């Protein structure tokens, strides 16, 4: 692909802290290479802001290779920007043209309060995992690989669900701010495997209870989450989550959950 430089106008959400009201700040960012990543473009801008003695723009990032889910940004109305199946850190500037104006906002959901500028507190997702998204056994020595047969098809589906990096784009893109794709992926990947079976019912009931407590909305199946997901997690996992929930809810004892 041909390399080119571009001059951009950036409209970035600036917010001091959780309490204070935020606003958009406009920056002109000249000389951006088409080979930079979106975050590198922010690095260039931040260098300049620091040199000018101004507060740099706070944004979340860690791995910068699309596997940690930290780089949450809403770019021109799309979670993680215009490319499908791509995190912000893997979005490259060749997605834009010279002269473009780019609007960058943090995830917007009451369950994800803004900490500063583009950084949101996504620990609500961690608490959903903590409510049951694990297997509580002492694993001991490694067992013989063939002692737990898993169908190829199920292993693949479980693996695809486990690809979720917990970035929260599903919540950010959903008109209901629902975390059902995230929770569905977490519940699915364990429900499909034999290791997940013993705690299957308590897991789903407790995770949904936590999800509701965190203030996420109900799923109305618009499927916007699937389109926004950088790991292209299927909404089928939401349907499976519903099935798992019903299976647990309609057979559970009153004491469960």
């Amino acid at each position, binding site marked *: 692909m041909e390399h080119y430089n571009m001059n951009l106008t950036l409209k970035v959400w600036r917010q001091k802290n959780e309490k204070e009201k935020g606003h958009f700040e406009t920056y002109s960012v000249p000389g951006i290479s088409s080979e930079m990543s979106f975050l590198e473009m922010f690095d260039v801008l931040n260098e300049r802001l620091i040199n000018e003695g101004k507060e740099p723009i706070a944004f979340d990032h860690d791995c910068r290779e699309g596997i940690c889910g930290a780089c949450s940004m809403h770019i021109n109305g*799309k979670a993680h920007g215009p490319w*499908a199946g791509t995190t912000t850190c893997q979005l490259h500037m060749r997605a834009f043209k010279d002269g473009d104006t780019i609007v960058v906002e943090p995830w917007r959901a009451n369950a994800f309060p803004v900490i500063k500028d583009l950084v949101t507190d996504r620990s609500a997702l961690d608490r959903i995992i903590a409510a049951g998204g694990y297997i509580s056994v002492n694993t001991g020595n490694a067992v013989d690989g063939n002692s737990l047969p898993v169908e190829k098809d199920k292993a693949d589906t479980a693996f695809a669900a486990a690809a979720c990096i917990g970035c929260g784009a599903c919540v950010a893109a959903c008109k209901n701010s629902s975390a059902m794709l995230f929770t569905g992926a977490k519940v699915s990947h364990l429900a499909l495997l034999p290791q997940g079976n013993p705690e299957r019912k308590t897991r789903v009931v407790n995770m949904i*209870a936590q999800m509701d407590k965190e203030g996420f*909305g109900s799923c109305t199946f618009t499927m916007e989450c699937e389109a926004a997901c950088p790991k292209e997690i299927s909404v089928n996992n939401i349907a499976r989550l519903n099935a798992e929930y019903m299976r*647990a809810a309609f057979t559970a004892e009153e004491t469960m959950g």
Partner: protein
Amino acid sequence: MTWKQVFTSSIGKKLVMGLTGLFLISFLIVHVGLNACIWVPDHGETFNKGANFMGTMILVRIIEVGLFLGILLHVYQGYLLTAQNNSRRSQNYTAGYGNKGSSWYSRSMGLLGTLILLFLIMHIYHFWTPSRLGGMWGIHELGEADYNNGAVHIHNLYGEMIQVFQNPVVVILYVLGCLSLAYHLAHGFHSAFRTMGLHNRRYAKMIRNFGYGFSIVVCLAFAMMPVSIYFGWVK
């Protein structure tokens, strides 16, 4: 886990929507089937007899109570859910959230539902009220029709339809009502099954396509009723 916990959870609330929605869909099938009798070229005899059967049979009347309860529950829960879901994002996006993955009607179920509700109120006023409550509290009464050489003496609901659908404004409102219903069902039909946990891809695809077909056929049939009366295709 108590029943209350089940049905007040985010999934439980959706389950109520899906189950009542499917129950209302089952009513639509009966309704469209019976109403299609207006196209039997016997000046409404089949239709009037069918309508009279439904209006007088005790079992149907009991189910009718269930139907009204179903509508109330669906409407109440629908508004509650919409309000709750809308309250989850106090500060909205400036650039608007993307819509690359969702259809406009799947995002507008509350609006479509409201249009259907408004239509339903008009529809009940036009036909249900005079046929069930006509004569009481000064409500206008339906005409009568004689069949089987005067042995059968029943309400002429057919005549009422002919009369109501002479007004072009009413016809347009009915067609718009059917259009809202079509889009509402296009999303609601398959979404209800997904809420109930359908995750087998083959069946999910089948149900989705069936849902599209169902909403088009049923709503087109409903919409054609006032239209064909207005244009005098049935007399």
